[in-house]
């Protein structure tokens, strides 16, 4: 591991690189003089498990068929590892998944190659993400409430005010051991409207969290935990990533999703700074931008692709379980990942202290 991690140092180019890049732009205008040589294999890193399986079905096999480059998949999506790779100059990943506020963090630390919009077609994407310079907007994910239908016979909490109401809705509960989303839930439970959450009033949020704290049986850390906790009967209600619950619902487990108050975040893919086959990495992301391929992925996991043409290709039974369906989207709010990138350290410090007391 070498010494310098600041974006400034990583961003500096040698004169030869600069000349080369300038020449290339001069020749074809897209930044690529000619199609660079194909590597035999490429490494796509993602969060693993069911995600990798769905990625293979939707994108990897098709990429292999079109370009004859074999895709090796690795996991998990680890931003610390990304930072170590870029810093040591030994970048093993050609493309990697980055979730939520980590994307902003990676962009600020200069860990990513810019997207080539002449290769990756984002014209049919929502305006909010069309202009992304470094982060390919793969999908959105939502942290929602999952619950045991069979255990909560008298009904389940709808929205966070009811989740906080332990008298009316008894049952074992689990929240994530992290301030993200939980602070927002607390504010919503305290009556703050969805569009007035940011900037987050930390004092108010933690005051409200004090109320629910004695009733939380497990503070989960890993993304796979909430589904497991529900299936094992460790808890009756847990917040968790919608795709993990989607998997359970599709397998007819006695688990259901409440979308009210869900926290939506952008989930991105990106090219690590110094990746070995940048052109082919761009090509891979271009494939990931196609609506038809995205639909295959969405059918598997319920994480929608953001290409607006997606709805034409998705299976009808999947639609009600989509984060972005017209039914579900208005119930949720968009997590402000920039606020989080700016305030994460303060929020986490305070969260840890809060966890410590009593």
């Amino acid at each position, binding site marked *: 591991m070498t010494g310098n991690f600041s974006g400034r140092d990583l961003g500096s180019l040698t004169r030869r690189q600069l000349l080369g890049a300038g020449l290339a732009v001069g020749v074809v205008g897209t930044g690529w003089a000619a199609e660079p040589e194909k590597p035999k294999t490429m490494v796509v890193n993602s969060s693993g498990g069911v995600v990798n399986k769905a990625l293979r079905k939707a994108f990897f096999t098709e990429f292999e068929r079109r370009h004859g480059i074999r895709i090796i998949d690795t996991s998990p999506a680890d*931003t610390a590892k990304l930072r170590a790779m870029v810093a040591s100059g030994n970048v093993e990943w050609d493309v990697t998944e980055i979730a939520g506020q980590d994307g902003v963090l990676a962009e600020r630390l200069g860990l990513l190659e810019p997207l080539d919009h002449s290769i990756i077609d984002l014209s049919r994407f929502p305006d909010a993400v069309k202009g992304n310079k470094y982060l390919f907007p793969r999908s959105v994910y939502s942290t929602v409430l999952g619950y045991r239908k069979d255990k909560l016979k008298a009904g389940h909490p709808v929205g966070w005010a009811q989740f906080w109401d332990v008298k009316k809705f008894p049952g074992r509960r689990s929240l994530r051991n992290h301030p993200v989303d939980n602070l927002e839930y607390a504010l919503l439970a305290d009556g703050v409207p969805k569009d007035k959450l940011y900037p987050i009033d930390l004092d108010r949020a933690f005051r409200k969290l004090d109320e629910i704290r004695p009733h939380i049986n497990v503070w989960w850390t890993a993304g796979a935990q909430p589904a497991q906790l529900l299936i*094992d009967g*460790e808890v009756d209600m847990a917040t968790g990533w919608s795709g993990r619950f989607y998997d359970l619902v599709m397998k007819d487990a006695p688990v259901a999703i409440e979308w009210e108050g869900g926290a939506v975040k952008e989930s991105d893919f990106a090219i690590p700074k110094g990746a070995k086959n940048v052109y082919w990495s761009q090509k891979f992301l271009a494939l990931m931008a196609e609506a038809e391929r995205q639909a295959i992925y969405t059918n598997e996991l319920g994480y929608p692709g953001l290409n607006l043409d997606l709805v034409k290709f998705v299976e009808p039974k999947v639609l009600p379980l989509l984060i972005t369906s017209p039914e579900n989207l208005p119930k949720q709010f968009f997590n402000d990942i920039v606020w989080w990138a700016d305030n994460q350290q303060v929020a986490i410090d305070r969260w840890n202290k809060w966890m410590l007391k009593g």
Partner: protein
Amino acid sequence: MTARAGRTRGSRAARLRLLHAALAAPAALLLAALFAYPLLDLLRLSLEHGSLAHYEAVFSGGLYVRVLWNTARIAVIVTVACAVLGYPLAHFLATAPRGWALFGLLCVVLPFWTSLLVRTYAWMVLLGNNGVVNKLLLAAGIVAEPLPLMHNELGVVVGMVHVLLPYFVFPVYAVMLRVDRDLMAAAEGLGAPLWQVVRRIYLPLTLPGVVAGGTLVFILALGFFITPALLGGGKVMMIALLIDQQVAQMLNWGLASALCMVLVAAILVFHAALKRIARSRAA
């Protein structure tokens, strides 16, 4: 080394010293490359931009200091539990008939060879609300509601004691094997009751093993990560969890390194203090 060797050329002691140095060199080099160098790099990283800002962050605000104390407290509980369970076990292993002793050793060694993660998950299966233990207790009518055995400090301590017990048993067992049984026989012959024999002969003679095992367990417990992460349910904060948070979530490696350095320093101070006590006792 070479200068000294020159002065006492031909002397047996000097040649032996050289031989010892040569024998130790490969291990020393390996340690330097794989341990000392990364540790120095960590120290450098913790002093990012040549300032003590990260150390200030560690010692101000109360969070990290309190978690360090909490970590030490849990490590002490685990060490004491290991001693209470491990001392009689080691005695059994050292004195039982050969067949039984071998069987007992196997029981200690087998889990020792099993992956830490597997053992931690095994405890989750045992201690959960629908786990084996709670199911038995419910079926037997001993409790009406499942007991909270996991996702709290109890679960963490149980898991850690299980993992660390062999580290206590082996050093104590090794020392107990070397204790001269005739000393106890002599004491008994002279009319000392059993507890006096234990207190005045067996315990002092086996104390070096207890100190070695206890130190090992305590130091390893300070750095535990997987077990508190999985069995603590987020409610048990140990310093390794916070270091992981800084490395993986915050990408604040400077602060993470500073926390590591403080942990290493605490362990060194503890070790030095223990050595001093041991030496003053011997003197």
